[in-house]
Every structure is written in C-alpha cells, then in structure tokens.
C-alpha cells in the first residue's frame, strides 16, 4: 500500500458520489476548516460530483491566509534590518504586506531563505553566528511540534542568534468563532493532520453543544466523499457525534509525545486572525523560558495595522460568508502571479484554489 492511489479510484469515487446523491434528502452546508481540504476538493473536482443541495464552504484553515497583516509586516520589517536573515516556508514569501512582500524585500537586498523545516532554519543560524536568523512560525497544531522541537534544540545547544516569530494558532477557537458569528453550517469536515496531533476528541464540543456533525477526514478524493456521506448521515438521523474517517492516521487521543512537546515550549495567548479579529486563547507563544528565542521578546517593532489597505475580502471568505468570485479583484488584478490578498498566495488559500482549478472543474 502507498496510501494515496488506493483512495483515488475513479470508479469508487463515482459510486461514492451516487451514494451521497441517494442519501442526501435535505439541504446541507458543511465547512472544511483545513486548507489542504480546500485544495483537494478543488483539485480533484469534487464539487462537480456533489448534488446542488450540498454546499461545501471553506473556512479559516489556511495558516498563511489567517495570519494577521501585522505579522506579515513585522517579518518584512525584520528582513530590512542589517545583519538579519529570514528563513521561511515558501508560502509566506509572496504574501503582500502593507507596502511590500518578502519577495520584493529580497529584490532590495534582504537575505530571505526558503526552508522546508524549521530545523533547516536552526542549522542556518548555527552556521552563521554573526547573523540574526528569524523563523516566522506559522501553522496549526500540525506544525507547532516541529517549531517546538526546534526551539528545544536551540535552547539546549544555546544557539542565541536564532529566534522564532510565532503566529502558531490552534483550530478549535476559530471553529467556535464561525458558529458564534452566525454562519449556518450542519457539519464540520475536521482537519485530518491537525487531528493526527490533537486526536479527534477536541471536536466533541461541536456536536454536543451546537448539534453540528463532525467527521475527521483524510485528503484523498475517496476520503473526502466518504466523510461527506458520514456527515449527511449524521444530519439525516440527527445523530451528531465526532467520527473519524481518517482512521489510518488519526486516533481519539492523538500523538501524546507531540502534545507534550507543544506544552513544554508554548503557552496559549489571545491572537488575531484575519477576518475574525482577536480570538481568546487561539494562538501559541513561546513560554518564558524560551524568551531568548522569541523574536517578539527580543526585538522592538513599530505599530502595524491589522487590516490590509486594499479591497481584498479575504476575511469574509475565511468565514465562509463570501466566495472568491464575489471579490471584484478575483482573477483580474488579483491572481496567483500578482496576489493582492493572502488567500491568493498559498495553494491552500481559497482564492488560489478557485483560480487554479476553475477550468479543471468546468471540463470535468
């Protein structure tokens, strides 16, 4: 087994889609809160396989998209400082700040390096002791353990020219915010890889408190369609509970080693989400013992605006209130080559996925 192709069987996908059409008698609105789901749904043309009475909404699950404008501007500020090196995941490079992006900072001479893992960033710091190496840490519970282990290693080896600007976030507060904001949904397609770390138990509150269905889904076409079918059934029978479709990688309790590492390094803080504003205890900042490696603590920053100075409606899209096509810039002045907003940058961003795969779906 390779754990990919087996879940892309065209025949099985079609048969799953007809099972969904057969059982879906009412109207359903399900939200996926993971950028990789948004991407997979579009990439595999799954929307065209679903009946019109099932709507899939994209929620606040793309880390690049939900990171606040002021976070982007802070990294760009550090990139412009003498002696600084910014080591970043590639997705952040082209996110527009209020004045420019990291990519344009590089054209102006800033030292920006793309890394695949925070460990590479630490390695760059160890090899360049005269430079201040900063890693802008984005991502949900999936990515936080990687940053946490890197900080543990930095502290142990006492590498003091390395620091992290943390925009790490945790998923449940945003899922609460969607519901509290009055967005009508019948079910959550819960993020599979976040759940690999946290376990599925963190979603129990949604069926129990709000009567919203919850299924932890994998990322292949059959995974997603099976999850939709499971959600339809929960709604049909009003039997709301947390189910795991992605059993090959998710358990109820999750990865306890990773949870311990997160707890050792990070503590929760109120954090700003694009589109939502400040959500209580929704972000992770390094604990006091890691202050030396916390860029927020180490450096002084100017005050930055939270809201981008454009007509971008990313914030509304991240709440599932609007579609990319509702934005007057979509596909015109905003496209993957020239992104105006964060949602057009990352492959997990809703606008990016809509733009890239719209033709694909028409053909399907």
């Amino acid at each position, binding site marked *: *087994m*390779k*754990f*990919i192709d*087996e*879940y892309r069987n065209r025949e*099985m996908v079609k*048969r*799953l889609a*007809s*099972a969904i059409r*057969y*059982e879906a008698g009412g109207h359903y609105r399900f939200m996926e809160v*993971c*950028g*990789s789901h948004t991407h997979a749904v579009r990439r595999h043309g799954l929307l065209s396989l679903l009946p019109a009475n099932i709507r899939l909404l994209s929620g606040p*699950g*793309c*880390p*690049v998209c939900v990171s606040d404008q002021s976070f982007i501007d802070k990294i760009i500020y550090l990139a412009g400082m003498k002696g600084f090196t910014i080591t970043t*995941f*590639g*997705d952040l490079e082209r996110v527009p700040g209020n004045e420019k992006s990291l990519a344009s900072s590089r054209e102006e001479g800033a030292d920006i390096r793309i890394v*695949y*893992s*925070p*460990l*590479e960033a630490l390695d760059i710091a160890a090899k360049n002791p005269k430079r201040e190496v900063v890693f802008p840490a*984005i*991502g*949900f519970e*999936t*990515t936080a*353990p*990687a940053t946490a*282990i890197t900080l543990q290693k930095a502290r142990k080896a006492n590498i003091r020219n390395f620091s992290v600007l943390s925009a790490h976030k945790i998923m449940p507060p945003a899922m609460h915010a969607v519901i509290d904001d009055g967005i009508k949904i019948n079910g959550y397609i819960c993020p599979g*890889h976040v759940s*690999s*770390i946290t376990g599925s138990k963190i979603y129990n509150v949604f069926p129990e408190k709000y009567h919203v269905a919850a299924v932890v889904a*994998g990322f292949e076409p*059959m*995974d997603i369609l*099976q999850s939709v*079918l499971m959600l339809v059934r929960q709604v049909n029978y009003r039997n709301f509970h947390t189910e795991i*479709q992605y*059993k*090959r*990688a*998710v358990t109820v309790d999750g*990865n306890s*080693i*990773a949870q311990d*590492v997160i707890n050792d390094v990070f503590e929760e803080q109120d954090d700003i989400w694009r589109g939502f504003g400040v959500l209580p205890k929704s972000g992770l900042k390094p604990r006091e013992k890691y202050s030396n490696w916390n860029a927020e603590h180490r450096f002084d920053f100017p005050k930055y605006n939270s809201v981008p100075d454009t007509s971008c409606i990313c914030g509304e899209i991240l709440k599932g209130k609007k579609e990319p096509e509702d934005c007057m810039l979509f596909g015109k002045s905003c496209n993957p080559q020239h992104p105006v907003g964060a949602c057009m940058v*990352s492959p*997990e961003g809703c606008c990016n996925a809509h733009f890239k795969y719209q033709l694909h779906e028409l053909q399907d």
Partner: protein
Amino acid sequence: MCLSVPAKIESVNGSKARVSIGGNKYQADISLLENAENGDYILLHAGFGIQKISEQHAKETLQLIDEINRKT
C-alpha cells in the same frame, strides 16, 4: 505548507530516519513517534514524522467504502 505526505522509512538512526516519497529520499526527524521502524509509513510534515500510518485501518476504510457502494 500544511502538506503532510506518506513517506516510507528506509533506515533509522536514533531520532533521524531516511525516508522515501515516490522514490525521492529525504531526511526525517522521528522523535515525535514511538517505535518507528524500517518499512513503516509515516506522515511527514515540515521535516518531522507526525504520525505512523496504520495499514490495518487503511484497509478497513477501503473495505467500508466498498460495502457502502455495494448496498446502493
């Protein structure tokens, strides 16, 4: 960036492993995993193994899907 992909462990050296994704080789940190061994598939994310993939559950899921389809 949230991408996590199945990778096969080819050799283990302490908390490090060499893994293969579709024939391409990568270095992975496996300190978040308990008893990861050669031949295991893991989810690789940002250079770290974040979970072992269960072959048994993978097969059960496929079987379940097959049964759903047969009934409709």
